[in-house]
């Protein structure tokens, strides 16, 4: 917390087991509830709808009945970027509204500093950032359920998943009070990981051997955090964004979809992403 000299730096990450994921959307709703996400009567325009955690649907596009689908929950990837902190969004922000915390590996977003140029939204390869086109309007009475640990945003600022950083702040408060330096794994869990009915989301410190995520992911930090587990992958690895978010799937076609392939590497499957922030055919 004060002098850490890099040794006790943590790297918080998440692994989502796509075999277990049922596409139920609990992670989305838990996130909305926890983070005071605004909502409007019409949320069908997904380019305008704010949803820090969003579940996409992948299809292998094979004809019936060889068709297969896979749900893909995508929050912010909390990219480390090349050179520890050069995440795509951080590199382009003109006002340092977004920053990389080397001690936790979390990419922060400060709403009061952001002035809404949306350059970061352009830069993010995962489309994980959302813009407040309008001021939030809560139906009368519903403002009572707002979480005081998270600041509601006004129009004109960009927001994104924060790995429920406020929960780490609360967990640290407790640790300070009890005089214990270390925060147990269960004391800091994101809302989505906590709610997932299938237990598909595992959150924790990738650098801590005691956290379940490190044994699930087995990240090789000499290779930019790439997983040693063949079933585990990250999206768009080639971009070297070094995301902290991993996925695990036993389906080869899903793993193949995680990155673009050069012609000589493998035949390019045509993919469709539903819940369209991005439609590619």
């Amino acid at each position, binding site marked *: 917390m004060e002098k850490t000299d890099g040794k006790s730096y943590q790297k918080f990450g998440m692994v989502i087991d796509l075999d277990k994921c*049922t596409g139920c959307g609990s992670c989305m709703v838990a996130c909305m*509830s926890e983070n005071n996400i605004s909502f409007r009567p019409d949320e*069908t325009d997904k380019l305008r709808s704010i949803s820090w955690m969003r579940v996409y649907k992948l*299809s292998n596009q094979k004809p019936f009945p060889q068709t*297969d689908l896979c749900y893909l929950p995508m929050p912010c990837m909390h990219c480390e970027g090349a050179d520890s902190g050069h995440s795509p969004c951080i590199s382009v922000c003109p006002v340092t509204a977004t920053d990389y915390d080397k001690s936790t590996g979390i990419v922060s977003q400060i709403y009061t500093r952001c002035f809404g140029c949306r350059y970061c939204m352009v830069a993010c390869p995962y489309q994980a950032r959302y813009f407040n086109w309008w001021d939030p309007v809560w139906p009368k009475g519903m403002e009572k*359920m707002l979480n005081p640990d998270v600041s*509601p945003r006004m129009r004109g600022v960009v927001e994104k998943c924060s790995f429920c950083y406020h929960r780490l702040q609360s967990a640290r408060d407790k640790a300070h009070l009890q005089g214990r330096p270390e925060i147990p794994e269960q004391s800091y869990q994101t809302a989505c990981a906590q*709610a997932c*009915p299938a237990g598909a989301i595992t959150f924790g410190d990738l650098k801590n051997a005691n956290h379940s995520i490190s044994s699930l992911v087995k990240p090789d930090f000499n290779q930019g955090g790439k997983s040693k587990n063949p079933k585990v992958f990250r999206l768009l690895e080639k971009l070297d964004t070094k995301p902290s978010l991993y996925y695990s799937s036993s389906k080869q076609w899903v793993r193949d979809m995680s990155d673009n392939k050069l012609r000589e590497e493998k035949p390019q499957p045509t993919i469709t992403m539903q819940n369209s922030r991005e439609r590619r055919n």
Partner: protein
Amino acid sequence: MKIGRRGFLSLGLGASAGLTLSPLPWKLLDDLSIWTQNWPWVPIPKDGKETYQQSVCTLCPGGCGITVRKIDERVVAVAGREDFPINQGRLCPLGLSGPQLLYTPVRVMSPMLKVDKGYRQISWERAMSLLTSKLRDLRADGQPEKLACLADSDQGTTPGLLKRFLTAFGSPNFFQTVSADDAWEVLTEKLSGAQFIPGYDLEETDYVMSLGCGLVEGWGSPLRTMRAHSLWKERGTQLVQIESRLSGTSAAADRWIAVKPGTEADLALGICRVLVENGIENSQPFREILRSRYATEQVAKKTGVSPSIIESLADDFKHAKRPLALCGGGQGRSPVASREFIAATVLNILAGNIDQPGGVYRNKKYDYLKWPQTELDTRARNGLKQGRLNASPEDLFQTIADSQTSPIEMLLVSGVNPCYSCLDTENVIQAVQKIPFVVSFSSYWDETAVNADLVLPNHSHLERYQDVAVYGGLTEPKMGLSVPVSRQLFDTSYTGDVVLGAAKTLGGTISNSFPWKNYETCLKSTLSGQWQALLKQGFISLPQPGRTPDKGSLRLRLPKIDAKEIQLEGNIKEYPLILISKSSMRLSSGAAGSPPFMIKAVEDTVLKKNMGLVDIHPQTAGKMGLGEDETALLTTPRGAAEVMIHLDEGTMPGMVVISQGLGHTAYGAYLADKGVNFNQLMGPVKDPLTGQNTAWGINAKLSKV
């Protein structure tokens, strides 16, 4: 002194220099930027003392335990309760949206009386006097049987009080939405002579053959089933999904067998035949029936599944250590067709898993109410002698719709929303409007409340005590106790208290039948032995007397094995497509309308602006000249609606799939007028054996608009 142009400039420069050397411009700039960030209409949630309170969610029959986070006295979040067996700290989108259902402005905030233009707020005194005077009149006319009640179930104290009231009053017309559990009891009674509700040991099975069950779409007790599915993935338990479309469960399965719709039972019986032929013992007559009607070639033709696959499925089932067959399509809440039940049960009998780990447990409904006999006077006896008007709510509404004057004078509606969730919805709404006096106990302005004459709002789910029995395929049925975690926000009242108040006012035997001061007293005394345990852990297990693990044998009356299949409404020439529904955890099709958080989670291939989309195979759409996002008219024998097309390879050619849970007309701007209500396009089809509604689809057509 004359100040010329230069003088003016000098003045200006001096001013600038002076100001610059003062804090004014710097402070003003910074303060202005802060001012622009403090618009008064962006709320700043007030901080305070954080507490957690435990309760049980009552929004669906799943019965999950919840932990409610409060700041000072405000409910701020709902999460799953860690130490609760059903969900173990996890929760579904509906449960998580609980606070929205507490604070929504769509709540009925006081008793409301229908007047010429809309509704007028009245006091509880006035509401109760109006209610009791109408009840008194009905009794005085000697027609107590003209009082009817529609409740969500017959289990629990609130439906119990309503049913008891009707009995003491003299009306046999207590109806409940027929659930899968009710259907089980009828089926098992008819086929095996003893009533039971199946409990499935999902946790211990190593091979699951699912006849179209939406296991990851909210089947049985949704959280429990999803957790079991995750266990299967960890342990390598095989899941075979027999379903006509690529649902989430089909995708999650190790094998997806795409059968023609409605032929799941045929495939299962075909597999039984192979098993029986290959030596799994059973009776000669049984073998004969299977051989004659379910030979592999016949089944292959009927289902569209190749003989080799049928053989391989039988082989896998035979070699599994603890195979288990499940039936109950979709979320498994509505009655199952007898054929499917027979097919699944025969498979389970052949697997030898009845009352065994990894198999089917025969659970019994446990009546914990144990109240004294209801007192009856002559009027009541005469009324009860008339017998219940119809077997099911659907039949009741049909009868009312068909009659000149409604045979029911007064209808009480509790915990259900028939004007949305009953099939052939338009017809049902008309029937409800025919009834002279309709009372709704809904906490929200739902479709039934806006058609009611008097709305007596119950406390919302986070504001009340409620006992909830959870069967839903659990190995060990439970009863959970929901407790008030929020103070009562509005002028609402326990439905139980309305019943007790009315009973007291009516006096005589009716009043005698209700010896409790108020609802909470009634609840506490009913659960007295278990009260402390319920408060502490939130649930108790419901005793299952007489269940011996090694009993394990079940005999079915087999001649019924060729129970006819459900014929879909609509002739094929006019309606060449088959319309079915799909359920999703992101939309509530039950009594609670989907809160804004859930609607936000709905994909834009299900809802686009206000239009509901239907899934259809590209070939089928192509034949009709329909493309992606085009508008079309979907017509069934029961209704028609405009929809948008979504091309989906996972849908079988010749089928149309529509989402459940949309098409509301009430509940305010965040839910109303979005999409199409599947129930409106559907009509009930009676099961030939049980007489319950087991319609799984309807024939339909799509035309360009």
